[in-house]
Each structure stands twice: as C-alpha cells, then as structure tokens.
C-alpha cells in the first residue's frame, strides 16, 4: 500500500472524526473543564495537571483538524491534495504532541532536560503558547459560522490570509518583548533590534495584504521565513513561537496562489454579473 493510500485512509478517518463533532466536542469540553476544576480543587500536582491537559490538547487537536485541515480540503474541492494535507497535519500534530510528551517526561524525570538554548526556547514558548493557540484558532472558528463561511473562503482565495495573519502575530510577539520584559530596554541595542525585526515583519505582512499576487507573495514569503530565523539573533526568537509563526506564515505566503474563480467573480461584479462567494476554484491555499 502506498503512502498516498494510507494518507487517504487517515484523511477519511479525520473526516469521520470531524463529522461526529457534535458528539465529541461536548464531552471533551466537559472533561477539559472538569480536569482543570479538579486540578485546582484537589491541589495542583503533576498528575492532575496532566489529567487536565490531556482533554484540553485533544479538544484543540480536533478543532485544528476540522477547522484548518478538513476546511482546507473542502474549500479547494481538490481531493488530490488529501495526502499532502494529511501528511502536513500528521507532522504538525506529531511535533506538538512530541514536544508535550518530552516536557511531560522531563517533569516526571523520565527524559533528561534539554541543552540550555533549547530549554530557554521551550520556556519562552510555554509562556505564550495558550495565547498563540487561541489567536490561531479564532479566525477559522469565526469562519466556520455558516453565514460567514463563504466570505471566509473568499478571503483566503483573494489574500494569503495565513501569511498575513501569522506575520502580524509574530510581529506582535516580538514587539511585546520589551513590554513583557521591560529590562530588555536597558541592554544596549536590544530595543533597536526588537523594533527593527518586529517592524520588518509588520511591513512584510502589509506587503502581502497590499500585493496579493503570486509573484510578490513568493518573494515576501521567502523574506518572512528568513526573518523568522533571524529573530534568534537579538530578539529571543520572538519568544520562540514568533519565529515559528513567521516561518509558517512565510511558507504559506510562498506557496499561496490566488483563487482565480473569486478574482473573476469580483471583477465581473461591477458589470452586473457574477455571484459572490461561489466556490468553483481549486486554487491552492
């Protein structure tokens, strides 16, 4: 059996899981609430923390698979993308679960602590991870509302939304460093480096919004990936997740293609033709 066939089956598994969302989400959310209530009521321990984290992570994973991965396939209508999207989703889920498992094992003293630079990176990421998770899930959650869904798809067809959005979050995280750690301002040149890198990320995000065409978004995407790496030189990696988001946003901008159907629809509108929100295109987003 080829990987494409395996990925296709896994994709069908994701879909059937998402189709049962009405049955799955209520108990998961209830288990999450109960887990956190028990954690704080019984006195916080490492075991109760993990009992609370487990349903939380499962809820967020299900939301990620349904709102981003499956929505992406549905929006394009191109089922040949299934193996690629499933592979990317599995890699993303494995990386997140792997990191959490390692952190968990480290706290239970099963795994050794990482080297110092990686420890700093993990500590920075842990502090902003809940905020970043919320920020990333809010647009697809809002976009899933049936009345807004066509506009949400149209938006992603016309603009490299994730490139712009993740670029702005990355810039926000980077520019927040002096607010979160004001003492950084006393280190010579630190403010200049932070403002410069945060500013460049804002400019790149604005460029993606102003020139949503394949050529410019490719060039800006490459620069955004490079700046995601450069953030480690003088801006604490944008508190780690700033760097990760800039790289993911840049990669998305690099591979984004406008959805021709939406562009045509928009161009025809002033002449009285075309209907908004049709999903005929198969542009890769």
């Amino acid at each position, binding site marked *: 059996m080829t990987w494409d066939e395996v990925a296709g089956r896994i994709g069908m598994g994701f879909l059937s899981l998402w189709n049962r969302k009405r049955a799955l989400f209520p108990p998961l959310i209830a288990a999450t609430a109960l887990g956190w209530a028990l*954690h*704080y009521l019984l*006195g*916080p*321990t*490492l075991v109760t*923390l993990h009992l*609370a984290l487990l349903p939380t992570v499962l809820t967020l994973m299900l939301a990620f698979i349904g709102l981003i991965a499956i929505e992406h396939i549905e929006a394009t209508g191109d089922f040949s993308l299934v193996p*690629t999207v499933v*592979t*990317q989703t599995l*890699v993303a889920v494995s990386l997140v679960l792997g990191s959490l498992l390692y952190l968990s094992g*480290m*706290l*239970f*003293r099963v795994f050794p*602590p*990482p*080297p*110092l*630079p*990686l*420890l*700093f*990176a993990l500590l920075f990421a*842990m502090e902003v991870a809940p905020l970043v998770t919320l920020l990333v899930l809010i647009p697809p959650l809002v976009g899933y509302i049936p009345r807004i869904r066509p506009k949400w798809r149209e938006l992603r067809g016309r603009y490299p939304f994730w490139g712009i959005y993740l670029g702005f979050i990355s810039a926000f995280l980077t520019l927040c460093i002096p607010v979160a*750690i*004001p*003492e*950084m301002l*006393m*280190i*010579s040149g*630190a403010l200049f*480096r932070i403002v410069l890198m945060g500013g460049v990320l804002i400019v790149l995000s604005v460029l993606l919004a102003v020139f949503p065409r394949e050529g410019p978004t490719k060039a800006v*995407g490459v620069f955004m*990936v490079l700046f*995601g*790496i450069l953030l*480690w*030189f*003088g*801006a*604490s*990696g944008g508190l780690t997740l700033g*760097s*990760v988001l800039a*790289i*993911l946003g*840049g*990669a*998305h901008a*690099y*591979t984004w293609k406008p959805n021709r159907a939406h562009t045509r629809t928009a161009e025809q509108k002033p002449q009285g033709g075309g209907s908004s929100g049709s999903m005929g295109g198969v542009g890769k987003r």
Partner: protein
Amino acid sequence: MGFGKVAGIGLASVFALLVAMSVAGVVLANSIPGPLEVKIPEADLTGVKMYGGSYPEGSSNPVPVVVQEVDSLSCPLGQTITRTMTVAGVKITATISMDKAELSEVLMKARTLTSSSGDLSGVTLETQQEPLGLLQTVSSGTMNNLEAEVYFVSMTTLGYEGLGIEITVG
C-alpha cells in the same frame, strides 16, 4: 517547492541553530526573569556599575533592588543558577550549573547581593538622585562566594562549559 518543504527548511534551520548554540556552549542575547538564586564561587568582573532601583519598574507595588551592570563577568569556578517557577499551580525548580562561564554585558536586578571576600580596584562612589541613590563604579575586581537573590538577569552573550541542568517538581 510546497508549503511542507519551505516550512520544514525554516524550522529545521532554527532547530539546527539552537543545537549549534548548544554544542558551542553559547547563548545569544537572552534574559531570565526571576526569582533566581545565583551562586558564583569566584567572580572576576570588569566595568561594574552598581546603583539602587526598583522592580518591576513602573509597577504600583515595586520592591527596592540593587542594579548591577557588568561589562564582562568571568566565573572560572563556574556558577549555579536556581529558578523556581509555578506552572498552573505546580512548583517546578530548574537548577542550571556550569563548570565555567563567561558573560558579557550583564544586567542584574537583585534583592540581595553578598560576597564573603574579594578585591576591587578603581572604585568610585557618587551620590545620585532617587531612585539610584548611590552609584558605585568599579573598573575591575574579584568577588568570592558571590550570592545573589535576583529578580531579573540578562546578558548579551553567555559562554559556558560543563553544563548541568536539573529539573525537580514540588
């Protein structure tokens, strides 16, 4: 090139950079918010400025601190940094020990700073307006058994040898 490849190259570059920094024993431009306990058996310092201050600055309830700015700090006998943090109510203590350490452009905000012995040269004491109070400058010196309860420390570079990290819970 697809999304996965571009993202993979970017993320792998960051991971490689962090691994390279770990292998080289160097940390670039980092800060560690407290509370921290820093113990240095022997600290060789140059370009020291010490003055009073408050932490966190601009807060409605700040605590008085000793601010120490050091151009270069050498710890030939190593140093131990202990940080206790609470994650979702669970107390986690990280102890970072190094056999040798070299730090540059260090900024430290400490509640207490004690040393059992040492020698300082080029010392100047100047009265200053609040919140500095008193400004002490030292061109170079050695402080033995330096212990500090630190609220915040940052440095431009940190080079180290013989790193040991221990994480304990509870």
